């Protein structure tokens, strides 16, 4: 027990080392939150362009660009994307690393969100679409009021899962020298040379975050399910 207290003090209390964890935690939260928002925005946009193309045959150029984007984002490792965005694309400009990470993880997540949402749109019965159009609603109105709400509900579990993956994937942010939660823990390990405490602490915090996120998603799911018996 005494040993535990000593270890704890060494890793978190001495020199206020807990602040590495706090800083990392905050950065991880900021990166994840904004990357999710960017991912949702890109993902819905791409999904709408792609399924509109499938349904109406319009937007050929848009569909083509989207497919290139999807192929690249899903065909290369996230870490390489992060490194390229940091060291190549933003090499000459001086912008905060957190911003770089948001861009990288947001772009990456957008590709997965896009395909999830597109599958959700396709899973909505064609009759729903026809009923909307037969009443005189135009394509956009039918999508907005009838198809998208149902698609969103259908893919909510998959989206929740994608956000959990994203949250955990931000743990590679250390590779561009950013103090995220993982990197924060690792800094402590480098100073104190004890692995157990900082790594377990970091793991527990991720676990807590993921559990909280899952809880929120399933609560939202239940609320959206009122229209089924």
């Amino acid at each position, binding site marked *: 027990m005494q040993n535990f207290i000593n270890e704890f003090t060494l890793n978190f209390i001495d020199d206020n080392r807990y602040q590495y964890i706090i800083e990392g935690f905050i950065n991880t939260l900021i990166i994840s939150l904004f990357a999710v928002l960017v991912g949702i925005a890109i993902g819905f946009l791409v999904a709408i362009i792609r399924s509109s193309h499938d349904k109406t045959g319009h937007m050929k150029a848009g569909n083509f660009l989207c497919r290139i984007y999807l192929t690249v984002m899903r065909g290369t490792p996230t870490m390489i994307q992060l490194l390229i965005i940091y060291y190549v694309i933003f090499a000459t400009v001086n912008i905060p690393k957190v911003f770089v990470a948001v861009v990288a993880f947001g772009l990456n997540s957008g590709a997965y969100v896009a395909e999830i949402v597109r599958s959700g749109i396709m899973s909505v*019965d064609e*009759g729903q679409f*026809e009923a*909307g159009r*037969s*009443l005189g*609603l*135009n394509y956009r109105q039918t999508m907005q009021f009838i198809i998208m709400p149902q698609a969103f509900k259908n893919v909510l579990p998959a989206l929740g899962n994608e956000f959990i993956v994203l949250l955990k994937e931000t743990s590679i942010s250390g590779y561009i020298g950013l103090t995220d939660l993982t990197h924060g823990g690792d800094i402590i390990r480098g100073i104190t040379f004890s692995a157990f405490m900082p790594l377990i602490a970091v793991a527990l915090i991720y676990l807590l975050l993921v559990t909280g996120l899952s809880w929120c998603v399933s609560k939202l799911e239940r609320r959206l399910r009122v229209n089924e*018996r």
Partner: protein
Amino acid sequence: MSGNVLLEVKELRKDFGDHSVLKGISTQISQGEVVAIIGPSGCGKSTFLRSLNLLETPTGGSVVFEGNEITAPGTDVNKIRQKIGMVFQQFNLFANLTIQDNITLAPVKLGLMDKEEAQKRAKELLERVGLPDKADAYPAMLSGGQKQRIAIARSLAMNPDVMLFDEPTSALDPEMVGEVLGLMKELAADGMTMVVVTHEMGFAREVATRVMFIDEGVICEENAPQEFFQNPKNQRLKDFLSKVL
């Protein structure tokens, strides 16, 4: 019964790839008419009906609705569809919306009514179809017959000039067919112009003002129900009737 011509169909053709489904259909539908369309499965009844509101794009011929050729390029189909109601075999109620919102969505979003007006109208329509207590229910909570009555109410909310029905009772359990046919009968009695694809020969005989037999992509025979059923002339119609009656 012979009011103004509402719909005029001229040499209507529809091909799916090299499969020619409609091979030149010409007919007129006048205000107040109730036209029942019968024919063997796969003969193109749905395709014909869906061509009338351009859910299918015809590959040839024309459809003129209230004097406007709606098959002409540049037609505002959304505007046209507001006046042509459609009721589907599978009901297609909006699963994400309450019954009231199902009924009010289109009139409100299309700017035809404000929200209160639309809700008042929805209430009246729910009374009319006999489901006044279902306003806040969701489609998944209703029986098939109830769903179809709501689907009819949703169409009526747009005050259409004509209503298209594609086998409205074919997906229903037998005990629910009556409630939907009864409602359609009331609509007909109120003077609604209706085009009904159906397998219900009783409905065609009693309610329709004209029955149309489609086979192999053409209208083989059309006539007033009495004559149509008692004195069919076309051989394929005779064969068909001998099987279904």
